[in-house]
Each structure stands twice: as structure tokens, then as C-alpha cells.
């Protein structure tokens, strides 16, 4: 079945440093979503990518969808303590159901 992997599993950064998490799917995706889950909270939607090679920006966050639509990345510039949480990618083959990756847990040291 479809598998979604993420690396790294954990990332500790100093406030102000950049952070990147990578997502890889075993199958070609129709679209990919990114979610953030704060400690003790529930996943909150960040963005959806649909097109091959697509790049989207949200303030300090940059999201990319690979040309082959099998991988994606999330890059945060100049991290802040409010960025703490676990970032999940979720891929869909047909646009309906999504398979979540295991997440990357980000810690930001002030």
C-alpha cells in the first residue's frame, strides 16, 4: 500500500535558525497537504499542493512539491518559538483519502 515517510524524525534548532522537513511517498500523488500539530493539540491544516514543481509561500514558510509528485518539503526561515510542534505531510493518490507521514517534531530553543 501507499507509504509516506518523513525525515528527520526530530529537529532541534536555535531560535532564528532555518528548518526543513522532507516528505517522500512510495507512489505518485495527486496532491499533498501539510499540517501542524502543537503539543497536546490536533492537526491544523497549513497548505495543499497540487501541481508538479509547485512552490507556495506563507510568510516564513515555503512549501515545495516535487516534479515527479512523489516528494515535498517544508522550509521555515528564521524559526521562532511559536513554530514548535510536529509537522505532518499527508499525501493522496486520488484526491480523497490521505495517508499521513510520521511527522517531524520541531523544537526551538530560545
Amino acid at each position, binding site marked *: 500500500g501507499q507509504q509516506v515517510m518523513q525525515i528527520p524524525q526530530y529537529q532541534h534548532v536555535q531560535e532564528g535558525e532555518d528548518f526543513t522537513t522532507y516528505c517522500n511517498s512510495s507512489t505518485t500523488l495527486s*496532491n499533498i497537504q501539510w499540517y501542524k500539530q502543537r503539543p497536546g493539540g490536533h492537526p491544523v491544516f497549513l497548505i495543499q499542493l497540487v501541481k508538479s514543481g509547485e512552490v507556495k509561500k506563507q510568510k516564513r514558510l515555503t512549501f515545495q512539491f516535487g516534479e515527479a509528485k512523489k516528494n515535498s518539503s517544508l522550509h521555515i526561515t528564521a524559526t521562532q518559538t511559536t513554530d514548535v510542534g510536529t509537522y*505532518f505531510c*499527508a499525501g493522496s493518490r486520488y484526491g*480523497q483519502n490521505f495517508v499521513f507521514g510520521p511527522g517531524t517534531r520541531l523544537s526551538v530553543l530560545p
Partner: protein
Amino acid sequence: GAGVSQSPRYKVAKRGQDVALRCDPISGHVSLFWYQQALGQGPEFLTYFQNEAQLDKSGLPSDRFFAERPEGSVSTLKIQRTQQEDSAVYLCASRTLRGFDNEQFFGPGTRLTVL
């Protein structure tokens, strides 16, 4: 309502007991999903409804798990004869059905602990 709500927020069950978890989606949201999230893991898909129709239940781990959404709004996930491995947070999510606008709105989850 302002968002997806779930009840109870916490449930402790003795092994072998049956439990029922409730999800109230955002009003008007056609699609409803159930996920199981073990500690330190990503949400794992359990089942999906479009209105009252259960279109995909491939993620349900065993026939002890059953979900329904009889009127296309509130949904209930029932687990019969609970086992310790059922301990997890059960998340419900809903979304509209507008082409590729696929944002899922998650509820706060029900944390199930089976002793």
C-alpha cells in the same frame, strides 16, 4: 458550531468493554474522516464518509471497529471488546466537497485508554 467537536475527550475502558466515540462535524461538511493516532505517530486513516455513505473503511483494524453516520451529520465510532492496543487518540475530521479544496478540519480528539 465553530469547529469539529468530539466527545468524550477522555475515555478509560477496561479490556473487553465496548466504547462509543462521537464526532460532530462542521455544519454542512459533506465528508467525514476518522483517524487513529498512537503516541508519537501520525494520524492513521480508519474510515471515510460522504454524507451518510461509508465510502472507505479499509483502515479499520478489525471487525471490532464499526463506524456510522446515519443522517449524514454526527458520526459514531464504536469499538467492541476493547484491547490494550486500541489505546490511542481517535481524531475526527470534516471537510467540504469543492473540487480540490481539501482542507480537513480536525476535532480535538478522544483519548482512549484501555486498561
